[in-house]
């Protein structure tokens, strides 16, 4: 917050004064104007409040003491959802206002006001929809100043009903009265609606025939009968079925062609969550927060959840009902529903009704659809608690478009366009990074379109035009290609792991230099190889590579990533020679002819680029242990191997396997030798997995210690998707802190490629500053 600035006071002590307040930040659509109105009433002040494109603009006039107390309270106790980024106060001569008024919105050229994120239904509205006396009884689109859709319905700023997809629903007299009544809970709540004037819900069968009767009763009956429903929600469609019916879940998996990837569930309330999962206080706080994300929780094995929800995993992604529609659906006979994103595998979340028929027609049996347009597609956010820290797997609904503060200053608006998978992009403006919602995979035309239109919408909402673009060095990333097509003055290609590191530094408010430990899948390196186990040093503008895991050929390139056993064979042949060949025959003999072909592809390097990703090392070990030879979703083998470890306190006492340093390279040859010896002895695979994890941490600690000694750097940034492994993260943090180093990690953006854009933007900003100013 900026201290009081402004012209010299012109009021005599104790007399009447007029203050002008300019409030910036998340101050629109969060009940700020009614709050100001109430506050002005409280202190008997005159003047007005209005939204403008900068934020909220207030003039108050009255006794000096009252005006000051007004300012203090405004600063210290703003509405629950408001976030004041900047408060400017100027003192003006009194104007002689006779009342306090709320001015209607007006637009101004620079759009600094922010659209707030979507907010989960508040307790007041929740109470109303179950109160038969209330006019919002059972109305699935009930909302108020403290809750409801925001980002997902906004077309333009300033945030006003006319500029949202609520524009097509003229308010009825009752709603209008509440909307205009400064003392009402719905005063200036833009999406305010009731059964008489607001959006309507309708249940259809797969042929598009409307289903007669009460939609709730119908849905419950269908879900109980094992049917799959497409449900239009806040930021897109969900596919829903009874989570406690293994056959329904299996059917959904089959139709969605998604054999293993975990499905998120929605639980009726916290009690239900507790019945099925372990729930810590921090996890409960996240679950019930206004953002209402999916929280990844440990399942209670004895609770009898169908294995089909998350095959091979001990965890489950759980969320609570966050719209009145969800709440109404869940307040029935079924306490737990699968609520997975409504899309075809690999395609963007479905948000429009017509597209839903087309895309989900052969997945869903019924469609629960409403007639309010979703303007901005927004997937559910996914968070987890690691030790004492909430971390993002995906930062989207409920958080976007709230900015992240970063240590960059004045200059042009910078776009970080993100990676190829889990894509998000970010707009960096004067020390604030606005990360987009989850865009996802870009390898389809639909995915690429999603990026383009979301980028257009986002830049329009912020009223900016990026002049500088940071993009990934990989020549074939669609995001990089798009970056080259976009109009911009300056473009900077940013190495993938440098971007990861910069992203971590940026969200921690640090420019560097620091040490970076980037454990990742595969990213394009400056030597044309695929990196991903990197010990770097650097800052926003440059980096240096000190150590990395030794390279192995990836047989068939991307094809190998879908078949971890082929990567295992590559490790065996590359590091253990003849002995490795024998082991691969012994372990993967069932692959017969395929095996000898893979061996040849590896030894002759036919379409076998060199790679050193930590994710690939996990793949190899997972395959060796028989955890998984083939995967059906990204990171599956590594995730399943990661879940096999012993609890940290017990696990960390096991010795790591040996490894060797050779120049810049860390050789895993000794690791594989001893791991295979353990395997041969029939050692418990949980112990092998744990020792393997300990080895990765030991590699990191040894390499970091060397770099810290030679450079004198004391901060270490941990980034890259592998850091989402809770055991690895906790142990590495502990052992690096034991070296006396300050460990920086991700809390505001994902450690995976969902956070890449932030680093790209930070690097591009710094390079622009150094090279173009």
């Amino acid at each position: 917050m900026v201290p009081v600035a402004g012209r010299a006071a012109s009021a005599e002590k104790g007399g009447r004064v007029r203050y002008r307040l300019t409030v910036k930040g998340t101050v629109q659509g969060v009940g700020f104007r009614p709050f100001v109105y109430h506050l002005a009433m409280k202190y008997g002040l005159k003047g007005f409040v209005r939204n403008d494109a900068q934020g909220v603009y207030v003039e108050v006039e009255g006794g000096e003491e009252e005006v000051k107390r007004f300012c203090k309270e405004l600063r210290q106790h703003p509405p629950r959802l408001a976030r004041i980024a900047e408060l400017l106060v100027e003192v003006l001569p009194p104007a002689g206002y006779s009342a306090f008024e709320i001015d209607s919105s007006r637009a101004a050229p620079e759009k600094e006001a922010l659209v707030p994120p979507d907010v989960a239904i508040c307790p007041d509205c929740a109470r109303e929809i179950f109160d038969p006396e209330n006019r919002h009884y059972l109305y699935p689109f009930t909302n108020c100043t403290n809750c409801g859709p925001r980002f997902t319905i906004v077309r333009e700023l300033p945030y006003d009903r006319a500029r949202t997809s609520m524009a097509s629903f003229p308010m009825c007299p009752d709603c209008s009265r509440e909307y205009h009544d400064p003392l009402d809970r719905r005063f200036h709540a833009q999406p305010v609606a009731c059964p008489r004037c607001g959006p309507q819900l309708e249940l259809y069968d797969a042929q598009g025939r409307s289903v007669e009767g009460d939609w709730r009763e119908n849905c419950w009956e269908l879900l109980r009968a094992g049917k799959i429903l497409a449900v239009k929600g806040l930021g897109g469609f969900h596919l829903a079925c009874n989570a406690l019916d293994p056959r329904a879940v299996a059917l959904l998996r089959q139709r969605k062609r998604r054999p293993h990837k975990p499905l998120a569930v929605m639980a009726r309330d916290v009690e239900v969550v507790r019945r099925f999962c372990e729930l810590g206080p921090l996890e409960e706080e996240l679950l019930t927060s206004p953002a209402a994300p999916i929280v990844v929780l440990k399942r209670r094995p004895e609770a009898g959840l169908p294995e089909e929800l998350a095959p091979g995993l001990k965890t489950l992604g759980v969320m609570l009902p966050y719209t009145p529609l969800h709440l109404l659906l869940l307040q029935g006979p079924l306490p737990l529903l699968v609520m997975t994103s409504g899309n075809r595998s690999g395609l963007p979340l479905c948000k429009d009704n017509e597209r839903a028929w087309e895309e989900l027609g052969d997945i869903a049996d019924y469609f629960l659809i409403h007639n309010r347009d979703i303007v901005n597609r927004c997937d559910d956010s996914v968070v987890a608690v690691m030790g004492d820290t909430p971390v993002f797997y995906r930062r989207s609904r409920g958080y976007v478009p709230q900015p992240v503060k970063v240590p960059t200053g004045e200059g042009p608006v910078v776009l970080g366009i993100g990676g190829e998978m889990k894509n998000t992009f970010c707009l960096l403006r004067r020390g604030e990074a606005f990360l987009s919602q989850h865009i996802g995979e870009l390898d389809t035309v639909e995915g690429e379109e999603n990026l383009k239109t979301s980028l257009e919408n986002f830049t329009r909402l912020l009223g900016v035009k990026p002049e500088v673009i940071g993009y990934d060095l990989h020549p074939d990333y669609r995001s990089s290609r798009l970056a080259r097509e976009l109009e911009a003055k300056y473009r900077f290609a940013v190495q993938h792991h440098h971007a990861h590191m910069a992203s971590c530094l940026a969200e921690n408010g640090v420019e560097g230099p620091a040490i970076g430990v980037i454990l990742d899948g595969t990213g394009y390196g400056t030597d044309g190889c695929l990196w991903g186990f990197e010990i770097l040093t650097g800052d926003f503008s440059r980096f240096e590579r000190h150590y990395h895991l030794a390279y192995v050929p990836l047989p068939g390139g991307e094809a190998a990533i879908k078949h971890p056993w082929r990567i295992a064979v590559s490790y065996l042949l590359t590091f253990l020679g003849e002995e490795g060949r024998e082991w691969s025959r012994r372990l993967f003999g069932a692959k017969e002819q395929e095996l000898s072909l893979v061996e040849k592809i590896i030894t002759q390097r036919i379409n076998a680029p060199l790679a050193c990703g930590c994710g690939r090392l996990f793949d190899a070990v997972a395959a060796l242990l028989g955890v998984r030879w083939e995967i059906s979703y990204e990171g599956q083998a590594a995730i399943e191997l990661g879940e096999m470890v012993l609890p940290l306190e017990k696990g960390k006492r096991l010795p790591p396997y040996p490894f060797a340093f050779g120049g810049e390279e860390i050789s895993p040859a000794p690791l594989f030798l001893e791991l295979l010896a353990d395997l041969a002895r029939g050692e418990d695979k949980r112990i092998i997995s744990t020792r393997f994890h300990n080895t990765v941490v030991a590699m990191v600690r040894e390499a970091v210690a060397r770099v810290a000694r030679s450079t004198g750097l004391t901060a270490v940034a941990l980034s890259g998707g592998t850091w989402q492994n809770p055991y690895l993260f906790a142990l590495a943090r502990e052992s690096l802190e034991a070296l006396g180093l300050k460990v920086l990690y991700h809390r505001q953006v994902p450690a995976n490629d969902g956070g890449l854009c932030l680093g790209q933007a930070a690097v591009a900003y710094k390079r622009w500053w150094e090279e173009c100013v």
Partner: protein
Amino acid sequence: MAQDVILLAHGDGGALTYRLVKDLFLRYFPGQALQALTDAAALDLPAGRLAVSTDAFVVSPPFFPGGDIGKLAVCGTVNDLAVSGARPLYLTASFLLEEGLSLADLERVVASMAATCREAGVEIVAGDTKVVERGKLDRIFISTTGVGIIPPEVDLGYHRVAPGDRILVNGGMGEHGLAILALRSGLDFAGQLKSDCAPLNGIIADLLAAVPGVKLMRDLTRGGLVTAAKEIALATGKDLLLEEEAIPVSGLVRGAADLLGLDPLYLANEGKFMAIVAPEEAEKALAVLRQHPLGKEAAIVGEVREGKGNVYLRTAFGGTKLMDMLAGAPLPRIC
């Protein structure tokens, strides 16, 4: 040096050259125009537009499952003529031979060319032979030029391609490219991969005779189906939409391509072509193709759309992928 290998002198125009021509080429290539051994062949041509095509064949190794460089040299040029709507008539052939090539190998190649010419109904009417020093090439390169006649009633070309037209292929994709790659790398796949090398003028003649709605044809050689489609899209300014699930790819090719991380839609064929056909005649064209031995796996694989010169592939998952020409082997984009 024994007499059963090619010597530099076989190419100097002297006695050895003469013997080679007499004992080998003339024995296998019976055409009158060639037998006359004049400096140029004088040919009678039927009415129509003259089509000429030329190609050099440098495949290494020269013998491969499903064919050899001789068969390929005939098919390649015959197919180029055939997809242009021409009836191929005459070929010329230039041989570049590596010193030390065994005469037996050369004879195998020549015999194979002769057999393929008979199958395709074309005649070799002129030829040339040169020998280069050992190591300058892999045994044998052949260059062929072909002429044919486009009958007056045949009108093929980009100008006829219109939105709604269907895209047909006559069989499985990627067989030649994978067979050669496997052979070169010593990868031996269960159930051997064979090149699909074959002259297409027969099946194309059947198609043209029965289906006037054929608007354009392309053979699917280097770069495979996608590259040919992209060339058409660029030339017409229209989009070509391919349906992944409709495109024939044998299980063997699919498995091998998956291991190697290659996409069969980019792999070379030597006996496959695509035809763009008016929608109302697509089913008929399919039936005609399927009646021919080289079209048993024929399929309708997509259609032409109004657009901007792009090729799209609708995947089995229902997504759409933009297909570009390849520039080198793709690097993994999975992080």
